[in-house]
């Protein structure tokens, strides 16, 4: 998710719960709400016609909630939840918020009054979930319909109406949305950005162009990494991937440190799968980003006291920059890896699987000059992988050595056991020598048919 305009929403805990849940005036204190209120942060300049709509998630094809404003377009919801380990709740005190609000925003008095009437006594939301509406490129909605279902089929030029109709089939709400001219033009503009188009008389015909899609995604990825990746992504996919194995194997700790990146190296090709898991549902994707923003999260929770999120967001960015020690890699490699990580995240979170593989292949096969070549990155990662493999091999050798040393101790035990065995055997031999002739001969007696005496006499 591009970290674009979080700054746009300023201290707006305001248009909170009531927007979404217009119900239940809490005069008395009910045991608990069957349909608890949720806290939303919505764009401040949303028009009154803005609605929460259910649209098909482009990546998963499952219905998801989006926020649509006829003027500004689409927003997706990012859920920010408290970590499960430290459960929290929201205390939504209307009084304080109201006062705060007076300074910021006097308007919309009607909404204000309804809210104050409904929750004048305050409200405790059990789940400390915060839903933030972040701008969403309608391009993502368009891509599934633009891309023909059968990947091999030659895609045809079609009128925008046809595409939009197709879109309306999957998400009934969409049909109403593009009734508004602004939305329609927005959609068509985005369509034009990624399509070849021809004019057939009055009408414009569109056909998807994968190179354009790729360029669009690259542009998004560039923007995503412009301010640096979220800290956890940076750590997991960039830093560990580029970490050089430690050469010394003398100490146990070194070994374990070598071990770690070796494990992680397997994770590199898995990014896509990993992220795909993540993108399974919009909310879960949001949760990852929430994970990545744990620092941000804590501040956001504090924002109940009307702290501005933009401060939190920017603080996160500023926080992340000094935290990062220098990555030991050739010039441009970290940038390429970040770009690829961002791309992988974008494609796995917002693209249907068919298109995802298409984009990935286009990315690798494309030789267009404006698309950066990932060849040096691949080469570097391969080099690192071999280095790690060597390290692992060396480690296993050294492991063997240390194991041998451990074996040395074992050897003592083994030797002891052997000595014990020998001793026992000698004893046995001695015993045998001590055996009288008669006892020896008695051993040869045919005792078949003779039961042991213990079957006659009971043991004491």
């Amino acid at each position: 998710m591009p970290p674009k305009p979080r700054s746009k929403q300023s201290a707006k805990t305001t248009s909170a719960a009531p927007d979404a849940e217009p119900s239940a005036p809490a005069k008395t204190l009910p045991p608990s709400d069957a349909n608890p209120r949720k806290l939303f942060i919505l764009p401040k300049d949303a028009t009154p016609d803005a609605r929460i709509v259910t649209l098909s998630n482009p990546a998963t094809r499952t219905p998801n909630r989006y926020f649509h404003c006829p003027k500004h377009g689409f927003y997706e919801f990012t859920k920010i939840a408290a970590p499960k380990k430290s459960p929290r709740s929201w205390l939504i005190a209307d009084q304080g918020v109201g006062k705060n609000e007076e300074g910021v925003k006097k308007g919309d008095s009607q909404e204000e009054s309804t809210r104050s009437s409904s929750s004048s006594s305050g409200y405790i939301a059990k789940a400390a979930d915060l839903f933030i509406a972040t701008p969403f490129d309608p391009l993502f909605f368009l891509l599934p319909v633009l891309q023909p279902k059968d990947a091999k089929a030659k895609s045809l030029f079609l009128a925008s109406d046809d595409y939009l109709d197709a879109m309306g089939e999957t998400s009934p709400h969409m049909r109403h949305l593009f009734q508004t001219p602004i939305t329609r033009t927005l959609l068509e503009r985005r369509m034009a950005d990624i399509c070849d188009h021809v004019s057939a008389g009055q009408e414009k015909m569109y056909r998807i162009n994968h190179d354009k899609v790729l360029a669009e995604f690259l542009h998004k990825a560039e923007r995503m990494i412009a301010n640096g990746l979220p800290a956890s992504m940076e750590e997991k996919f960039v830093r560990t991937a580029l970490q050089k194995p430690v050469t010394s194997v003398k100490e146990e700790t070194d070994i374990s440190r070598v071990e770690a990146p070796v494990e992680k190296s397997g994770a590199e090709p898995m990014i896509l799968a990993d992220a795909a898991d993540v993108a399974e549902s919009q909310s879960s994707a949001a949760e990852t980003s929430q994970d990545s923003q744990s620092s941000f999260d804590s501040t956001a929770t504090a924002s109940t006291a009307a702290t501005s999120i933009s401060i939190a967001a920017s603080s996160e960015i500023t926080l992340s920059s000094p935290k990062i020690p220098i990555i030991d890699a050739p010039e441009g490699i970290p940038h390429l890896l970040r770009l690829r990580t961002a791309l992988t995240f974008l494609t796995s979170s917002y693209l249907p699987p068919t298109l995802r593989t298409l984009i990935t292949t286009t990315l690798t096969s494309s030789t267009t000059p404006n698309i950066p070549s990932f060849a040096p990155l691949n080469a570097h990662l391969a080099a690192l992988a071999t280095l790690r493999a060597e390290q692992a091999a060396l480690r296993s050798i050294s492991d063997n050595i240390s194991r041998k040393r451990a074996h040395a101790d074992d050897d003592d035990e083994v030797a002891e056991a052997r000595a014990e065995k020998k001793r026992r055997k000698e004893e046995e031999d001695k015993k045998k020598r001590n055996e009288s002739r008669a006892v020896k001969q008695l051993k040869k007696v045919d005792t078949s048919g003779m039961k042991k005496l213990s079957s006659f006499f009971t043991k004491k």
Partner: protein
Amino acid sequence: MLEARLEQANLFKKVVDAIKDLVQDCNFDCNDSGIALQAMDNSHVALVSMMLRSESFAPFRCDRNIALGINLTSLTKVLKCAQSDDILTLKAEDAPDVVELVFESAESDRISEYSIKLMDIDQEHLGIPETDYGATISMPAAEFQRICRDLIALSESVSIECSKEGVKFACQGDIGSGAVTLRQHTNVDKPEMNVEINMSEPVSLTFSLKYLVNFCKASGLSNQVRLCLSNEVPLLVEYSLANNSHLRFYLAPKIGDEE
């Protein structure tokens, strides 16, 4: 502390001689009632049980129960150093490492002292119930020994049939067959030659002759031997000793196959 003085070393020598061919190592369990021993052979088909009552010794002192684990071959070696009519004294501490044997020659004021290292022997003790045997045969020990030695020339096993007519030891071998029948017999002049058969039911059992021959090594201990038989239970061969002491052998019968 154990101290057991035996007037005649011969008794102990013979007992050990009789046992040593059956078992290798065994525990001599000493308590205030005397010295007891119970051991099985390697195949666990024969059992020897010895009881030397404290009255057999003079004096006998045993403060607490002691188990003397002794290798019988070693014991035999040491006992060979004793003359038959030497006075034998067994000595051991309460938690002994060794057992001491002192041989005193009454004639020549010769005292020889030996010690044998003890060993830890795990032996299972079997509880032997009092049994009413179907047939009890008392006969001269030498007679029994002779029968066993004669028959082993023909076969490995002997069937002992006890009926009204008497007791019949019969065997069937590769070269032929043999049988010895004894009838009840009372010798007024020599009571030790008596053959006495007490029978409540006819009994017929087969035993391994090799084991019986082995038991017969105790023949020197007593003039008479008592054979107790019941169907389906082990044979008891008992040599009575003075002072209510005894040496008993048990042997599992051969059941099924062969005959």
